[in-house]
């Protein structure tokens, strides 16, 4: 599966989320050969972990499905999953990437019948649900995973469970002898679309994430609302499983803060406004949302979305950054702060607090070629010094899905221009 003929006219796309998929497809559909590298066992990235996305509140499965169909029908994209780029050498038009491919222990014969999952007993944390739940150690990464193939968790190898999984498979798809491989791929241009990670909320000490069970992050809240999530789409408190009807959303949790992330993460205001819709959807009678904010940044066209939420009597807005969260005897998180409209101190208990955590670029700390120019937050800049390594999507800026797709298309176009020049020189 790892034999690829890649040349200087190939475009390497690192990251298979919405940006990487878009960049790969846009380039492939103009006739370029693309190698798409994804670290997880399935494509889709953080977009696939959302319940719905703004502004139309459609399910991401829809948008992803369109891209997956394009991908299935396009022989020019070669997909590597469970693969990570560990280094890139060379210069514009002539790069060599070293890629580490971890074993899936399941080959192309897999039909996703699920017999191996039923056969094994071991359970491991499910990162797709931000470890809020566990899944079997033989698993399908998510309901619409592409490739639609099972994965064995490395923890299972060498145990009796592994043999049980192998015995249960009728198609000879399980190969327990698969080894980690390191391969080299040539490319003329690189699109770096490694996306983002939620800022580590435990670092925001006064908010007590990690100490108080009922303080969760916005990405975890997405999983709670999702029918495929750990609670089957019910918004329940992690501490006692009670229905959480009075929910606080805290904006700028980590963003716009010199002690944490310097930048405005741009999506969190819209994400919280969107999530108030989940509260109303799940508890139409008595759901209540409170948004604590510095200022609402519903960027450009989304102002009408904000106005509609403002008109909703179940949502209240408090212009204040919460100073501290404590926990009362019932396990309710209590928000402390001062309302800057009137300068009144408040101490308000809620069932659940959702921290609208900021976006941290995933490139941070990853060793891509030393000369990559990034801004003070670690987002890749569009700088000539970067040669033909182009940032796309959230590797280049804090973006929502819509803008990430635009950014990826732009990056694809830049990469296409590079390989076109290479092709002309070689002709």
């Amino acid at each position, binding site marked *: 599966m790892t034999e690829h003929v890649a040349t200087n006219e190939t475009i390497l796309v690192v990251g298979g989320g919405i940006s990487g998929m878009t960049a790969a497809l846009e380039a492939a559909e103009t006739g370029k050969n693309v190698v798409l590298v994804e670290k997880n066992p399935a494509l889709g990235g953080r977009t696939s972990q959302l319940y719905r996305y703004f502004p139309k509140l459609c399910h991401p499965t829809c948008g992803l499905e369109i891209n997956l169909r394009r991908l299935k029908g396009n022989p020019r994209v070669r997909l590597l999953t469970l693969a990570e780029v560990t280094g890139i050498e060379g210069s514009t038009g002539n790069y060599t990437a070293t890629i580490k491919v971890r074993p899936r222990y399941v080959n192309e014969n897999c039909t996703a019948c699920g017999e191996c999952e039923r056969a094994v007993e071991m359970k491991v944390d499910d990162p797709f649900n931000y470890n809020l739940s566990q899944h079997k150690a033989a698993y399908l990464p998510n309901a619409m995973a592409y490739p639609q193939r099972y994965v064995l968790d490395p923890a299972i190898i060498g145990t009796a469970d592994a043999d049980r999984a192998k015995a249960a498979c009728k198609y000879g798809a399980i190969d327990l002898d698969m080894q980690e491989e390191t391969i080299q791929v040539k490319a003329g241009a690189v699109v770096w679309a490694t996306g983002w990670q939620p800022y580590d909320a435990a670092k925001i000490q*006064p908010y007590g994430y990690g100490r108080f069970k009922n303080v969760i992050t916005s990405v975890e809240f997405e999983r709670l609302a999702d029918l495929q999530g750990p609670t089957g789409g019910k918004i329940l408190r992690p501490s006692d499983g009670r229905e959480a009807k009075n929910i606080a959303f805290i904006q*700028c949790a980590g963003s*716009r*803060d*010199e*002690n*944490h992330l310097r930048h405005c993460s741009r999506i969190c205001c819209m994400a919280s406004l969107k999530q108030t819709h989940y509260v109303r959807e799940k508890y139409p009678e008595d759901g209540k949302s409170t948004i604590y904010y*510095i200022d609402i940044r519903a960027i450009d066209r989304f102002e009408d979305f904000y106005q509609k939420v403002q008109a909703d009597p179940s949502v209240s807005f408090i*212009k*204040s*950054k*919460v*100073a*501290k969260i404590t926990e009362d005897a019932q396990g309710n998180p209590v928000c*402390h*702060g*001062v*309302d*800057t409209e009137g*300068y*009144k*101190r408040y101490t308000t208990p809620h069932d659940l607090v959702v921290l609208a955590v900021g976006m941290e670029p995933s490139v941070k700390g990853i060793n891509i070629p030393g000369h990559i120019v990034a801004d003070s937050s670690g987002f890749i800049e569009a700088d000539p010094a970067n040669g033909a390594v182009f940032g796309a999507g959230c590797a280049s800026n804090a973006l929502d899905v819509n803008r990430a797709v635009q950014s990826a298309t732009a990056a694809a176009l830049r990469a296409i221009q590079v390989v076109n020049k290479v092709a002309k020189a070689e002709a």
Partner: protein
Amino acid sequence: MSANTAVAEKYRNNFLKEIEEQVEMGDWVKMCMQCGVCSGSCPTNFQSAWEHPPQELFMMIRAGKREEVLTSSSMWNCTSCYNCIVRCPRKLPITHIMHGIAEYAHRLGMAPKMQPTRFFSGLFWKNCTHTGRVNELKLSMGLYFKDGFVQGIKNGMAMQSVALGLVKAKRLNVMELFGGHKCKDQKGVHAMLKKAYEIERSRKTAKMAG
């Protein structure tokens, strides 16, 4: 023209600029984004003690409310716990700005005279610069009699047992009331402070001119 009217004239309708130039760390005030974390983190229950929490003071400065800010007792209530500095997302040195505004108001003679922090600060400074040593007996007596003779006697009576305990433990010498101990080079201390005032004055004059 008094010092106050001179600066008021210079910065007419531009109180923010006045604070930026005249107050230590005052140039940070414009960086406040009014999130309210400083007030929320303040351990003093500002609603009774503080008339205006820090971010309100900053807003008032920008709104040009010179009289209200400088005569306010709010910044004098800061306990220097530094919670606000630690949590401020814009890294404003709020504690220092509070002290800076307080000091400026005092310099202009606009600070509330009997505000306890201001009163104590003045008392302490006079006490320790006089002999070069702090005379604890005179300092606490001065504080007791802040609100008049009758109240002073009452305060003294209330603290009687503590005082006697201190005398017994030889931590308090009643003879300190007459003169008290001094540092070796009392004149040297006075000369040093005189020079420091001189430097400060010339620096501030230069600033005013600029």
